[in-house]
């Protein structure tokens, strides 16, 4: 304490000098516009500089938080991206020729996109498909279901939100088909063998079909519009009664890999049936 007091006493003139010099400069800046403005500008500038330095320093230390935030956001965006990509995939699934052809044929029909949620199709077994569209979405029994590879099956039972489909690879399934360009038609059956193959029975013997010919829907059943791709002829053989041909068909649809399908909504089905009945009664 004594030392401090001594120090203060000894250098009193120094403190006095600082005080008086401070007063002088205050007066200078206070009463002279030019000096005052220069001083204020310089002071503002240095204050701004200090603030800027502080701000950048603060920003630097905040980088950790920002990084965590960015990671979270990135994850969120990736999830969103995945969802959008899936949506885009289902929206622009149309890539193969068959699919384009199918779409062309179905151009006038209303298609209801659906997803297979349960797939019971397998070799030697009468399996069913379940799709995630039901009565609520306008699905009704006996509507056709098509996919990228062509015909898939027919709606059998309809729930509120889901629908059961009898696929082509079901022994009860019977779809009216024809050989493209020849108009000879028969019914597509499945013998319970491979899920990649089905059989077309009752093809007249005079119908000149060869392996490789395209089989498509005939349109006679009112379930499917005509011309939807079903498969290609693999082998031509005699039917069991020997009166007609039996065609082994390689199906266009791979039931082992089935996800996105379309239900062919045919609102005029009742009308068509009515007309058919009327025609029947006329004969």
């Amino acid at each position: 304490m004594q030392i401090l007091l001594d120090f203060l006493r000894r250098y009193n003139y120094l403190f006095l000098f600082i005080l008086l010099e401070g007063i002088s400069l205050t007066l200078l800046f206070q009463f002279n516009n030019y000096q005052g403005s220069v001083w204020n500008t310089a002071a503002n500038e240095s204050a701004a500089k200090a603030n800027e330095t502080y701000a950048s320093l603060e920003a630097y230390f905040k980088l950790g938080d920002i990084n965590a935030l960015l990671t979270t956001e990135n994850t969120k965006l990736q999830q969103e991206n995945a969802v959008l990509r899936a949506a885009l995939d289902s929206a622009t699934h149309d890539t193969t020729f068959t699919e384009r052809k199918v779409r062309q044929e179905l151009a006038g029909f209303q298609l209801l996109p659906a997803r297979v949620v349960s797939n019971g199709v397998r070799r030697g077994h009468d399996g069913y498909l379940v799709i995630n569209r039901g009565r609520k979405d306008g699905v009704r029994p006996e509507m056709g279901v098509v996919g990228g590879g062509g015909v898939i099956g027919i709606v059998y039972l309809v729930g509120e939100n889901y629908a059961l489909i009898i696929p082509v690879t079901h022994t009860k399934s019977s779809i009216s088909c024809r050989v493209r360009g020849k108009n000879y038609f028969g019914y597509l059956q499945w013998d319970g063998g491979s899920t990649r193959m089905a059989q077309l029975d009752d093809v007249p013997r005079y119908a000149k079909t060869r392996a490789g010919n395209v089989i498509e829907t005939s349109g006679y059943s009112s379930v499917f519009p005509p011309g939807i791709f079903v498969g290609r002829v693999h082998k031509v053989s005699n039917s069991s009664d020997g009166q007609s041909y039996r065609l082994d068909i390689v199906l266009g649809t791979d039931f082992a890999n089935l996800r996105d399908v379309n239900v062919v909504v045919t609102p005029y089905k009742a009308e068509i049936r009515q007309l058919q009945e009327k025609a029947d009664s006329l004969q």
Partner: protein
Amino acid sequence: MFNVILPRILWILGLILAQTLVFNHIHLIGYATPMPYVYALIMLPHGTSRWIYVVLGFALGLVVDTLSNTVGAAAGALTLVGLVTPLLLRAFAPDDKLEEEFTPSIRTMQWSGFLKFAIAVTFIHTMVFFLLETFSLFDPLRLLIEVVSSTALTVIFMATFEKLRNTSRSA
């Protein structure tokens, strides 16, 4: 004591009057303005408390500022000069005089010692004064010319005072 202080007070008042009435209006070749009021600090005797130098410098500067409308510039400059004058006096005074109390003059310090002392003090004052007044280094050459010429003119006036004072005293 009174005999010593009264002439000094009179000298200081005279310097202030001369500054405001005469010297402020001199701008030799547009640059040089004499500011011999620094003389009031120079003639303080060796051994004077340093706070007196500082306070006197500030007060004198304040008065000159008020009368010549340069608020703060002379006060700031003279306060600094008050701080360094004792040091300069110690540096330029002859060694044999430092032990005792003496008044800086051509008689005690010789012309060479006194002039060196006066030039150093005056130079510091004019430099700080002009720096505070222009408050920019926009035209450093002009500033230097002003400082040097004003210093020279001030020293000439102070030497004249010194000569007058000593001749009047000896006469």
